[in-house]
């Protein structure tokens, strides 16, 4: 039984007169503890899928089963609860609260989570033991993204969703972030789904789901994923 199971999922947007399908019968599965990458060109519908998986949006049709629960028809409130307990998010643009220190940003998530980890520990884990009391503005992009990851991890989510986490980062930092994500996956056994438009990243994934034009084009399971250091782009 797959941990994440999306079946015939549709999401349509109305753009004036025309209706655009952002997701057009998406179907895929991801096993627990996998490091999955969803790849596709810009506008393919990746973010839409991720938002639906993360309970930030609901599909128009289809089944979205997470750990055996179909969240496709969850109410707004149930979705919020679902996000709170099961999901960790990492955005391209970090979305840290600028007025809170790194530690506080993490605590913000830990505060509401039932089985949260200690903020300081997580920050140390992501290599920010020294920068805990810094404000986001005092941190570099990579550091900020690491705070964001720490914030996501502190909740001990079942699913860590990352939407273009390296999009705003330079190559090295991006690699470090990917490394951290991979490490998280390995260390905590968290199922991680990373969205990217960068095909080069796919070799490090246990499973690659290619989406194009609102449809899943290909799903590749990689028995021997490469380490981050091995890949280049």
């Amino acid at each position, binding site marked *: 039984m797959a941990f994440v199971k999306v079946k015939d999922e549709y999401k349509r947007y109305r753009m004036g007169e025309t209706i655009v399908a952002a997701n057009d019968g998406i179907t895929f599965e991801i096993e627990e503890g996998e490091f999955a990458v969803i790849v596709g060109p810009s506008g393919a519908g990746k973010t839409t899928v991720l*938002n639906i998986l*993360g309970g*930030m*949006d609901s599909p128009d049709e289809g089944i979205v089963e997470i750990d055996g629960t179909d969240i496709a028809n969850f109410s707004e*409130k149930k979705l*919020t*609860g*679902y*996000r*709170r*307990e099961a*999901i960790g*998010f990492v*955005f*391209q*643009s970090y*979305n*840290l*609260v*600028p*007025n*809170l*220190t790194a530690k*506080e940003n993490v*605590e*913000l*998530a830990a*505060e*509401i*989570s039932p089985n949260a980890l200690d903020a300081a520990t997580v920050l140390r884990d992501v290599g920010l033991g020294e920068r805990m009391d810094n*404000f*986001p*503005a*005092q941190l570099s992009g990579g550091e900020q993204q690491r705070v964001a990851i720490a*914030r996501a991890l502190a*909740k001990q989510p079942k699913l860590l969703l990352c*939407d*273009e986490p390296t*999009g*705003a980062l330079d190559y090295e930092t991006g690699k470090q972030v990917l490394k951290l994500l991979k490490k998280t996956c390995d260390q905590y056994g968290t199922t991680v789904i990373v969205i990217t438009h960068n095909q080069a990243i796919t070799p490090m994934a246990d499973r690659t789901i290619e989406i194009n034009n609102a449809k899943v084009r290909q799903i590749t399971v990689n028995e021997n994923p490469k380490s981050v250091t091995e890949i280049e782009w």
Partner: protein
Amino acid sequence: MKKKALWKDIVKEIGQSKARFLSIFSIILLGVAFYAGITATSPDMVDTADHYYKDQQLMDIKVQSTMGLTEDDLDILADLEDAAVETRYTQDVVLAQSSLVTKLMSIPLNEKNPLNQPYLVSGRLPEHSGEITLDSKNDYQEAYKIGDTIEIETSEEEEGTSNLKKTSFKVVGFTASPEYIETISRGNTTVGNGTLDGFAFIPETDFDMDVYTEADLRFSNVTQQTAYSPEYEKAIEAKTDKIEKALEKRPEERKKDIQDEIQKEIDKGKEEIASAKKALEDGEQELADAKEELDNGWAAYQENKAQMDQKIADAQATLDQKRQELKEAETTLANKKADLKQAQAELDEKKAQFEQKKEEGKAQLNNSKNYLEQAQAAIIYPKDQVAQETQQSLSSTAEQIDPELAGVLTGYFAGKVPASAAKQALDGFEASLAELPEEQKESAQVFLQSAREAVQSPGEQIAADQQQTLIQQGKQIDKSLGDAFAGYFAGEVPPVNMAAALDQTAAGLSSGEGQLSEAEAQLKAGQQQIDDGRAQIKKAENQLAAGKEQIATGQQELDEQKASGEAELAKAKAKLEDGQADYEAGLEEFKEKQAEGEEKIADGEADIAEAEKQLKDVPLPEYFVLDRTDNPGYAEYNDNAERIAAISKIFPIFFFLIAALVSLTTMTRMVDEQRTQMGTLKALGYSNWDIAKKFVVYSMLASLLGASIGLAIGFYLFPTVIFNAYGAMYHLPEVRISYPIPAILISYLVAFLCTGVAAFAAVRVSLKSNAATLMRPKAPKIGKRIFLERLTPIWERMSFTQKVTARNLFRYKQRMLMTISGVAGCTALILTGLGLSDSIEDVASLQYGKLHQYQAIVALDDSASENSEEKYQQLIEETTEVSDALMVDQENDTVNQKGVNQQEVNLFIPQDPERINQFILLNDRETGKQFKLDDTGAIITEKLAKLYDLKEGDTLEITNNDQENFTVKVNNIAENYLGHDVYLSPTYYEKVTNEKPDYTMQLLKYSESEEWEKTFGTALTDQKSVAGVSFVSTFSDSFQSTLDSLDIVTIILVVSAALLAFVVLYNLTNINVSERVRELSTIKVLGFYDNEVTMYIYRENLLLTFMGIIVGLLLGFILHGFVLQTVEIDQMMFSPIISISSYIYAAILTTIFSTIVMIAMHIKLKHINMLEALKTID
């Protein structure tokens, strides 16, 4: 950017950010409406009054003098430059049915547009004599209807009514007057209880006065100025000076005129007295003459009367004597008559007896004669019976036989021997027969036989009945006759005897006849005698009658004489009596006239003395040149308008400040949001101004729209509402709405500054950056450690959310300050409004609950009789509900001092100063210490002390009704809220005024229902000595309603503040949300529930609101004190205390607005599209 594009962009922008546009629009609308409205209110109030004054031709200046005005005065006034002068009579009177003390004012009937024209409320103005229009005050409208007839109380000692030709008027209408714009106060008077209840207009011709009461002046060029304006006041001041100067000499002249007049009158009076005295003397002389004449007449009359009386008495005496004599003669005659009568009677009786006897005798005689004949016939002689031969034979035979017998027989036959004796003899013979021999025997026998036959008793011969008759009759005639007859018949009496007896009887009969005729003769003689006597009497009677007649005639003559004499006398007497009566009446009249005349003379002399004294000290008449400020309410109305003006100078600043803050924040936010677009435009080569235009135009559009609508609403709403609130205090026509240009300009300017400039300022900062910087998102503000974090122990003890809140609060300092000041401003306004209401409301409850503890004031009639006063006191004593009573003297005086409005003060002199505190609490407002009213000084009330800056120990000069001044020492200053009171002990009052207090008021205490109070009230007013009763409950109520009207101002403040609070909070929260939408979306994504999200942001708002409330309450307290000072009128002191509940209400109200905003925000937050917000800006 092309114009079209710009507008398109703006319109689109407005559509996309309705909330922002609306918030700028509404805050400007509110601010402008409030500012413009409240600013226009004061000028509108003045303008309304000014038009009213102009329409009704309210006088500018009024001239009065203590002695009225004469034509000379008017001539001077008429000569003044551009002055219209009108004269007026006035007279203060009491209306009989309602006891309303009323100022009657004359209104010219022919003048179309007089000065001080009454403002008709209903009915019409007087057009004919005897018509009246009354004050439109409630008291009058309740007491009278149009068509009613009003009687004016013609009081004893008030000579006021003599100034009127009529005392009865028909109500034809109700009017207000520009001279009396206040609804209640009408000023003071010397009539009734000293306070005027109202005014009334009657035709000028119904007055009857020598001098005018006042002259009203209106200056055509001064009147151009707006009332109350400094120009007007200055012009009036100049005119007043001019008039005063023009009238400068008048007092002396007038005095001289009056003195001349008095002198004239004195002379005239003296002359009059002299002639009166002369007239009296003449009268006296005349009377004396008349008296003498009358006395003579009386004497003559008496003499005449005596003479006549004597004469008549003499005549009467003679007459009476004659009458006496006549009477005696009459008596004698009567006696004689009586004797005669008796004699006649006797004679008549005798006659009668005689007649009877005569008849009887005659009958008897006849009877007896008859009888005698019968009887004689009955006498039978046996010789005639027995045949001669037998006689012879027997006698012979008897002789033979016996001689004796023979004798007996012969006797018998002769009739000499009775038959019985014959028989006896025969018996004897028979007896003897036997002896005879026989042969003889036989013959004897035969003899005997024949003898026997021959001897028979007459009885045997005459029938028995005849016998009996004879016997009886005989017996009747004579017993012996009867007996004789009986014997005869028995045979025992011989017929001879019998015959003899009869003869004897016959003889007797004839003698009886003789006797009878003799008696008859005697009777005749007696009758003759009597008849003679009668004749004599008749004669005497005739004589008597003649005498009587004589006397009667004499009497009649006498009577006639007497009557005529008496009549004459009576006539004379009547004449005399008439004369006497005339004289006495004359005397009486004279005496009266004399008394009167003497009194008049005395009076006249006293008058002259008085006049002479007057002449010496004719007071110098005082001339008063009064302006409109002496009209009750005139100045206060302006004070009120100025008070509103004062408010209009403070409050709108708050509004505008807040509006400016809100606008600036909003525009700054808007600029921030549009950074990217700005950068793009800049990159495309648009000029800074081109880019800024959009923001400036956008914001100005919102604010100018808001300002325009705000002006429209404000100019109408505020003046109307506030003016109507004052409507309870002032009687004026509908408010005149104005649109003052300065207020409009300022409104637009402020709107422009608040938004356009703010927008430009906000944009300018951003435009300094280059396009690239702009296009990138604004560098997030660097998080900063806040001060609190340095206080590690506290910081560490704070929960995470608290820390976040604290950090956020300090991060957005601008917004924090804005929120705090916005909320504080609103709270302050609300608290000020509620506090004003408290202060106002407290006045009634403190004044009539705490301080004035009596329930009624009874005004007693000064002139009432002692009896009715006693009756009143008895009523009070008998009314057990009345628990306490206190007599006081109350006077309405004034205090004048440069630089302060003239103040009316109530002088209170309680009869028993020890007890004053049981009726009116005199205490210190702050310490509550009770004051004692002693003889060393006065207790005055707080506001009075405040106005004149008096402290304990200072002195205060008071002017009484007679314009006399006296000074009191201020011992204590007592809590009081309404009016000014000065309390004096009777002793102290006497000391300072040299007058004795006149206790004409009584304070009463009771605790009963209003129902009872009503009936008690009628019982009181029914009392003759009660001039009026007022109940604290009623003026407490009416005062309360006046105060309630002030509450409108409060409500306006509170409502405006509330609206402001709402807009501010909403706007700030809105900005807060939009500024932090990313942060909010993030926490939403993190799994914060909706209410957690709301609280995340609102926790800050609540804290800010709380802080704002605290600051606002402080600010409100200060503002309240300040506003109170400007709002307060001279006659009132507001309680400076704001009740705890108002603080609480202000806080709660603000919190409620905050909560409403929170709910709105919650809904908004719920619908935040977190995906949209978090979208990576590529």
